């Protein structure tokens, strides 16, 4: 998980592609348009069009293939729903899995091409400021806690924590580790907040230097997307 998050950060900030030419606001709104299309799709043909579009974008932007693995979880999680639709038709079941996978790939594409402060910045236009701030802190904390957990687990493994084949013992050790993580993370969150406050956080987190104006490129991209989504939904 941490490896993927760090990898996503790296892609979002420094992977050169045509996606970086669009403003983050354009990308967020564009994602919303496509997502609506995916959710509103009624058959598997429409889903296939959206999926192909996204795969084409990932490939032409030369994004790494592991990005697809992010869409794998929802595919698995949608299986029970698909199974229940099997009785109706195979196509219905495929649509369920397809919808989940395509939507997840769309979001993966967004986070891999837009730095997280800008995504949170776009969200902050609709979300209450307290929520955006906490979201941001949580995201940073997650990285730190994952690192701390990885080191803790190594140390525990070395000390014989999980090799005993004894479920009760492993369970207890896991609980202690989680308890330890909670106590430590709460303390860490205080330090983090203090450090951020010293640097100007608390007035209002500044979310990037983008101007308010919509550029022609973004508008054109949006227009194409809206036409495409409308076309696909009407056509199929």
């Amino acid at each position: 998980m941490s490896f993927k998050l760090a990898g996503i950060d790296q892609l979002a900030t420094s992977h050169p592609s045509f996606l970086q030419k669009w403003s983050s606001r354009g990308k967020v709104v564009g994602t919303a348009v496509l997502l609506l299309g995916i959710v509103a799709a009624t058959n598997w043909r429409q889903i296939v069009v959206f999926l192909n579009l996204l795969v084409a974008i990932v490939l032409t932007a030369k994004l790494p293939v592991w990005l697809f693995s992010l869409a794998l979880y929802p595919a698995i999680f949608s299986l029970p729903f698909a199974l229940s639709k099997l009785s109706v038709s195979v196509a219905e079941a495929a649509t369920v899995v397809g919808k989940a996978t395509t939507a997840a790939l769309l979001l993966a594409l967004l986070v891999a091409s837009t730095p997280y402060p800008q995504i949170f910045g776009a969200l902050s236009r609709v979300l209450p400021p307290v929520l955006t701030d906490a979201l941001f802190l949580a995201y940073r904390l997650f990285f730190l806690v994952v690192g701390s957990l990885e080191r803790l687990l190594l140390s525990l493994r070395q000390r014989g924590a999980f090799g005993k084949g004894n479920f009760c013992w492993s369970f207890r050790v896991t609980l202690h580790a989680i308890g330890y993580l909670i106590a430590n993370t709460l303390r860490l969150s205080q330090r983090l907040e203090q450090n951020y406050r010293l640097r100007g956080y608390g007035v209002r987190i500044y979310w990037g230097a983008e101007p308010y104006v919509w550029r022609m490129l973004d508008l054109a991209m949006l227009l194409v997307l809206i036409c495409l989504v409308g076309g696909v939904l009407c056509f199929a």
Partner: protein
Amino acid sequence: MSHIHLPDGVLPANLWLLSYLAAWLWLRSALRQSEKEAVQRKLPFVAAMSALMLLTMSIPLGPLPFHLNLTVLTGIVVGPWLGFVAVVIVNIILSLLGHGGLTTIGINSLIAGLEVVVGWWLYHRLLHSWRRSWRTLLATGLALLLSISLSLGIVGSSTGMLDLAGHELHLGQDPIAEEQPAATLNVSTTADMGGEQGVIAVKAELLGLTGIGALAGILLAGLGLESLATLGIISYLQKVNPDLLQDEGPDIESGGQR
């Protein structure tokens, strides 16, 4: 335990829109309420609990395919209002990473939020005078039971899966007339859980373990595990950092470097 990794596109639009609206109203009142509780001071803890909930979802508990949610614990540590804020944050980040859809943030938050509030209320209010161990077990168990039943009803019925009872849906054994209601329940739970539990339920079915017994077993195992885990974590924190478990939540100036 009852967290739904519900992907996009399986819920009917009216349901997710409605749950978005409800979650939004709840969030507004949560923020207004917590404004009075010095939200700036407690914000780090909200973020910390969110990060921890995200993290524990990737720690398997021994050989079992369950993960902890920490929703009730979050309620106990940061209180009912800010606990809901933490739950919303978790669902937003999860949806960005593909664990659960963007359209399902509303319903996912409502159900997990319910666990936070009920857990907090049982632990800090109703059972306040009880022994810590019983209070933890009951608060966690009851909160989860309530949220599971509720999500069962809402999601199961609204996705139309309850109607499938009449169809031949059994993957394992032949359905006989008396087993129909159990099968119905099983399917709807599968739908409701969506995530690991759902997969397990389906696996159980494939193994021929249909019926209320298998389902109850799976649900109770998960429920019991989260309750026991919450108890274990709370006893640990009680020993190590008792101030974290006070009613008002941890204070900003305790702990840390001197």
